[in-house]
């Protein structure tokens, strides 16, 4: 088996996780910038984090022979503070030329507030001015439906945005159709409690089609499983899917989306 982990917060994971992922067939990992579990005290905290994502973490992954890529932004959980967001948006451009940066992400909404919307709009503008791809985080639980609709509307309102260069992540049964119908890629996140389980992810793949879909573990410092993607592949086998179908979903699809940025390459 071979697969891409297109969404993993590796700075929160151990080297044992890297080893396990390699052993399971991981060929590359992509790490969107996200919330640390606490609010950073200022822009300097983000500067250090961006250095970690573009310098230290790819080196750590390289020790295991794993290509590491990243996406940069201020996450929606900290976007309620628009002054901080403006400062962080100010330093993102100086990192965009680093060799493992794939685009702007994971941007999006958390509680669907006006400030979050404003900062999301600024991120989209930043991405468009710099010709960047976009990775979007959709809100949790009861906030996901409304947030996904607001995000899709906002993206569609900007004529510069090419939907095929945007992935809207953490879709579930009530949001996937809306995302795919609008021409965006959809990410399905496999979590033990929230988001989706492997059987549900495979249901969505079967019902809604898998042309513009990727699977990810979104492993971070919370309850999550860095091997969720290969475990779902095993479940797909039990469901009778061919090796070619599985390979296309967990390896071919992420490569097809990510390769739109020429910086994305496997070893």
């Amino acid at each position, binding site marked *: 088996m071979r697969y891409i982990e297109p969404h993993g917060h590796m700075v929160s994971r151990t080297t044992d996780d890297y080893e396990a992922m390699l052993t399971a067939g991981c060929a590359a990992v992509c790490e969107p910038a996200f919330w640390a579990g606490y609010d950073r005290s200022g822009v300097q905290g983000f500067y250090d984090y961006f250095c970690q994502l573009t310098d230290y973490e790819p080196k750590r992954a390289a020790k295991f022979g794993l290509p590491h890529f990243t996406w940069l932004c201020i996450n929606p*959980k900290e976007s*309620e503070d628009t002054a901080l967001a403006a400062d962080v948006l100010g330093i993102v451009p100086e990192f965009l030329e680093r060799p493992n940066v794939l685009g702007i992400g994971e941007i999006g909404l*958390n*509680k*669907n*507030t*006006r*400030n*979050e*919307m404003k900062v999301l709009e600024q991120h989209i503008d930043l991405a468009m001015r710099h010709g960047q791809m976009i990775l979007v985080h959709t*809100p*949790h*639980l*009861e*906030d*996901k*439906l*409304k947030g996904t*609709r*607001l995000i899709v509307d906002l993206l569609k309102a900007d004529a510069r945005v090419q939907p095929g260069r945007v992935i809207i992540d953490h879709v*579930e*049964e*009530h949001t996937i159709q809306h995302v795919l119908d609008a021409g965006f890629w959809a990410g399905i996140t496999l979590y033990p409690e929230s988001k989706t389980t492997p*059987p*549900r992810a495979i*249901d969505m793949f079967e019902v809604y089609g898998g042309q513009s879909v990727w699977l990810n573990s979104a492993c971070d410092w919370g309850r999550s499983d860095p091997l969720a993607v290969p475990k779902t592949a095993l479940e797909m086998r*039990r*469901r*009778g899917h061919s090796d070619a179908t599985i390979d296309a979903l967990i390896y071919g699809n992420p490569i097809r989306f990510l390769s739109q940025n020429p910086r994305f390459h496997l070893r």
Partner: protein
Amino acid sequence: MTRQQILDLYFMDARSKLIDLAAFLDRVDRAEGEADFRLAAFRAALQELHGGEPQRAKAVLLSLSDPTTEPIAAAPGKGAIGAWHQTH
């Protein structure tokens, strides 16, 4: 896959989750004090299982979702709790 194969693959797992649900509701009943809005939201979502279309997962998720469309003025906190509560 055939219905038979799906049952072979998932029946025991679904059975276990069904009993867990029943035990959860029993546990809530045995406990004391007032329940907050989540219990009513949970019971409402349960009704969606009776639907005749293969869209039950979607219907349950919709039932637990915030149906409003306008951004809110300020975040009440960072987290989500799993069910929507109309506050105004």
